[in-house]
């Protein structure tokens, strides 16, 4: 290891006669130093703060904050929302990728752009559109009220807004991957007599599995962490329509910092876990799109 490093060092300088090694070393220190300082202030310090604030009054206070029934309700609501949204968007992503990557048709690039649209839209607008559709003064508001159906300020609205926000995550991972892998194996399977579902489950799915995992974990992270869109449709009813990110806001605004950062620490661990899984997937040689 050390030998190799030394060799690289020698090679580097042997091929560059007259290179000013002092300036090179200075440039290296400068770039690494500035990068680390920037990331320390903007990223590492806030990450560390989440845990120091959550544990500010000790472990017991930290654990006690999870005994709050509203916190438990928020955690359950977040898990429920993700459990509904992520599978639906995964099926959508697979269907969209099959249609777009396996076939040539007109208007394909328009379709791809439209699928990506939710990523370009402000989260607030992602929630707003459903309030305008299903809110009391919205397009279907009166009809829904007459039939005693509540979408906005209730679970269906939270699920819809989360679905909108996380809509493209699986599709945008699978479309380029399937396009790049081509159709030869699928065509061979079909020609040899395999059925459509068999081809999909035995040929396509194993080929794209890492891309699928990658898309699903990013979709899940966003689904559990979405704030803006859900905030607009939720109505902030404690213990009923509060997801974890919304519960953080309420606790924080009540100056219950230990409680707010305790919930935040769970979401931070989720983010760390997401990045770990992502790195593991990348070790298989898969590179995200």
């Amino acid at each position, binding site marked *: 290891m050390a030998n190799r490093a030394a060799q690289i060092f020698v090679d580097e300088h042997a091929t*560059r006669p007259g*290179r000013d090694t002092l*300036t090179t070393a200075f440039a290296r220190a400068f770039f*690494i130093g500035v*990068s680390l300082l920037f*990331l320390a202030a*903007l*990223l*590492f*310090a806030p*990450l560390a*703060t*989440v845990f120091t604030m959550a544990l500010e009054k000790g472990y017991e206070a930290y654990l006690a904050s999870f005994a709050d029934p509203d916190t438990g309700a928020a955690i359950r609501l977040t898990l429920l929302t993700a459990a509904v949204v992520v599978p639906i968007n995964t099926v*959508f992503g697979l*269907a*969209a990728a*099959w*249609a*777009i990557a396996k*076939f040539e*048709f007109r208007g394909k690039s328009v*379709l791809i*752009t*439209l699928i990506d*649209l939710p990523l*370009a*839209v*402000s*989260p*607030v*607008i992602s929630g*707003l559109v*459903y*309030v*305008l559709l299903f809110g009391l*003064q919205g*397009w279907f508001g009166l009809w829904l009220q007459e039939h005693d159906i509540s979408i906005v300020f209730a679970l269906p609205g939270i699920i819809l807004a989360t*679905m*909108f926000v996380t*809509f493209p995550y699986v599709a945008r991972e699978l479309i380029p991957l399937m396009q790049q892998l081509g*159709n030869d194996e699928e065509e061979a399977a*079909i020609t040899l007599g395999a059925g459509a579902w068999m081809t999909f489950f035995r040929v396509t799915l194993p080929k794209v599995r890492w891309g699928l995992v990658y898309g699903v974990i*990013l979709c899940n992270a966003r689904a559990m*962490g979405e*704030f*803006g869109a859900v*905030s*607009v449709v939720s109505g902030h009813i404690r213990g009923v329509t509060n997801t*974890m*990110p*919304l519960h953080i806001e309420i606790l*924080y605004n009540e100056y219950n*910092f230990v409680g*707010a*950062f305790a919930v*935040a620490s769970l*979401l931070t661990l989720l*983010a760390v876990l997401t*990045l770990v899984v*992502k790195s593991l997937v990348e070790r298989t040689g898969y590179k995200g799109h």
Partner: protein
Amino acid sequence: MNVAVETRSAPRALRQPSVLPGFGLTFGFTTFFLSAVVLVPLAALVLMSLRLSWSEFWEVILDPRAIGSYRLSFGASLLAASINLVFGFIIAWTLVRYEFPGKRIIDALIDMPFALPTAVSGIALTTVFAQNGWIGQYLEPFGIKVAYTWIGVTVALTLIGMPFMVRTVQPALAEVQKDLEDAAETLGAGRFHIFRRIILPTVLPAMLTGFALAFARAVGEYGSVIFISGNLPMKTEITPLLIVIKLEEFDYRGAAALGTVMLFISFIMLLAINLLQAWGRRRHTRTGR
């Protein structure tokens, strides 16, 4: 060959023939689901703003409070994207060109703002940059207030835009041909000259794309900003927050009008990003790499 003949015989065919099954099912499901979750709700937003008369619409979107919010949203987003242009490049350069301990972890952590819920980064940044916070306390003696001012808004937007810039510039920097740099150096070019004539032209499309992506994300950002901004009308109130306030006042049409303006800007940014990426690809193929 076959394909060419078939397309000529059916020039208006919507799709080219394929032996693979499932086009009708997957294409139908994709377009239906896309329409139901994304397109119809977005259309409902635009239609709702049309319920206002032309003069009412202008009155809402040119209201001084609205103008104040555009100024902050666009100003802070531009500033944040510009900061990322410099520091994102430095971080990408550090990660591509240098080896140092902990580099892989730092590389993985760059994606943290993608995975971390915005509410968490919002309360964490506010705590770090508050007057008694880890960083805020050192800025206070210089009279620099970050939390609850436009500077805080810029800090939050810089954090969420950072990964867009780094992840776009990194692959482009990895492609800069080192032998070209060596040749230029041998021929007597100085460091600055090499940067301007060899490195910058290669990474320029990527940097502009990263800038546009970071800017587009920042303009719509809500969760990480509202905690640190202080939310004073005309001063530290971003446009997405103004939409939320209008909704809370049950002014659906006003919210829809502002939402339509933001949607229009998102479309323009999407177009700009697509053009920049196409430009980058063209340059890429022209240089033969």
